[in-house]
């Protein structure tokens, strides 16, 4: 569904979905990450966690199934599956903090070359709070950030250092933007370009990236 150059929001979600492996327990953030659920590859069976206290998040309810006592972390009404279980918030975050969730896919405002992420506040604007974002990036085994590569003014969001207050330090393993995929293995300090979106040239990526990446060939 790519429109013109690079990836659309839905393309990014689809690419992020390829990071899901069979049997994974997965936490999806708000925004583009929510779309990931629509693109889970065939034969890959994952269990979605909702940090307000549920494993096995099901689809939105039919009108006659709506239950005000069953919502997700985005406060939307949802349904349960045969595999579902409920638990309290302390147990939910024990699960997150303890490294039991295989992967978190989350939105970002800025990512630094050292894997820092900023996605919860903009100084001077009303701050709504970090919710569970700081716990997720600190605790989940593998964190994949999805964001536009540049802001509306065209400035890079992949930076040497985040300019916004951090959500977490050195915690992002992969960044998916409209221009491509940037990843680093466990223990690796720097990100590499591991994939380019359609019709995107490396030169464009370099021009739009302030972060110092490992620019070796794909």
């Amino acid at each position, binding site marked *: 569904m790519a429109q013109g150059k690079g990836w659309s929001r839905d393309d990014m979600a689809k690419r992020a979905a390829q990071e899901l492996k069979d049997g994974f327990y997965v936490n999806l953030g708000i925004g583009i990450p929510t779309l990931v659920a629509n693109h889970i590859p065939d034969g890959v069976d994952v269990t979605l966690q909702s940090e307000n206290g549920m494993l096995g998040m099901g689809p*939105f309810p*039919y009108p006659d199934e709506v239950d005000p006592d*069953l919502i997700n972390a985005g406060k939307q*009404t*949802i349904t349960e599956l045969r595999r579902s279980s*409920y638990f309290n*918030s*302390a147990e939910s975050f024990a699960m997150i903090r303890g490294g039991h969730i295989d992967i978190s896919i989350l939105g970002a405002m800025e990512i630094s070359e050292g894997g820092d992420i900023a996605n919860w506040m903009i100084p001077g604007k009303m701050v709504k709070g*970090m919710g569970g974002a*700081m716990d997720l990036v600190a605790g989940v085994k593998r964190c994949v950030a999805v964001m536009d590569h540049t802001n509306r003014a065209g400035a890079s969001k992949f930076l040497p250092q985040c300019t916004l207050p951090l959500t977490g330090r050195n915690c992002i393993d992969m960044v998916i933007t409209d221009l491509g995929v940037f990843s680093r293995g466990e223990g690796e300090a720097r990100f590499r370009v591991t994939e380019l979106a359609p019709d995107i040239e490396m030169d464009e990526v370099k021009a739009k990236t302030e972060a110092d990446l490992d620019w070796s060939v794909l």
Partner: protein
Amino acid sequence: MSNKVFKTAVEALEGLTFDGMVVMAGGFGLCGIPENLIGALRDSGAQNITAISNNAGVDGFGLGLLLETRQIKKMVSSYVGENKEFERQFLAGELDLEFNPQGTLSERIRAGGAGIPGFYTKTGVGTVIAEGKPTMDFDDEEYIMETGLKADVALVKAWRGDTQGNLQFKKTARNFNPMMATAGKVTVVEVDELVEVGSFDANYIHTPGIYVQRIIEAKCEKRIEQLTIRERA
């Protein structure tokens, strides 16, 4: 047995409210909030309340009721996005706000109830949350210390409760309620359904009655914040 059952939310808070009190209120968004007890707390007229609650309700509902009447002096929360009156008071400097990461908040409440005055977590390391907090390294990684939280009164919403205060919660309405039940000096619970002792299978009680001092049965509106549905094919 000393009687734990009260008739109304107002009676259940009798003698427990005072100016400057610390209150915990369960719920995530508007799901699983103690609606009737919040109303009774408003009616008590207690001022300068510190409210520990993951969210701050919405305008005119949930903790929004207590914001309208300016009874809340300080909120300890993880996310307060859905409340215009909150925003107005905060920007006007009329309201204190302490943000806690959601998992840190829930663990702090559990710790408070469990006699644990402090614990270390990786959550928030390198962020504003870490400022001024003691740190310690474990296996060469830095962690920050967070403290346990308690309340003068914990307001809890459960699904079913028996007359001894044993509780069961429904689906995601469980959220912060079980921990808060353990962290109140006095814990007051409202349930959809009050049942006789012995109605529950003892294997499946979420909160044992030891944590519950007062309980009422009360009807909740259970307002839905984001109705999302799909159509049948």
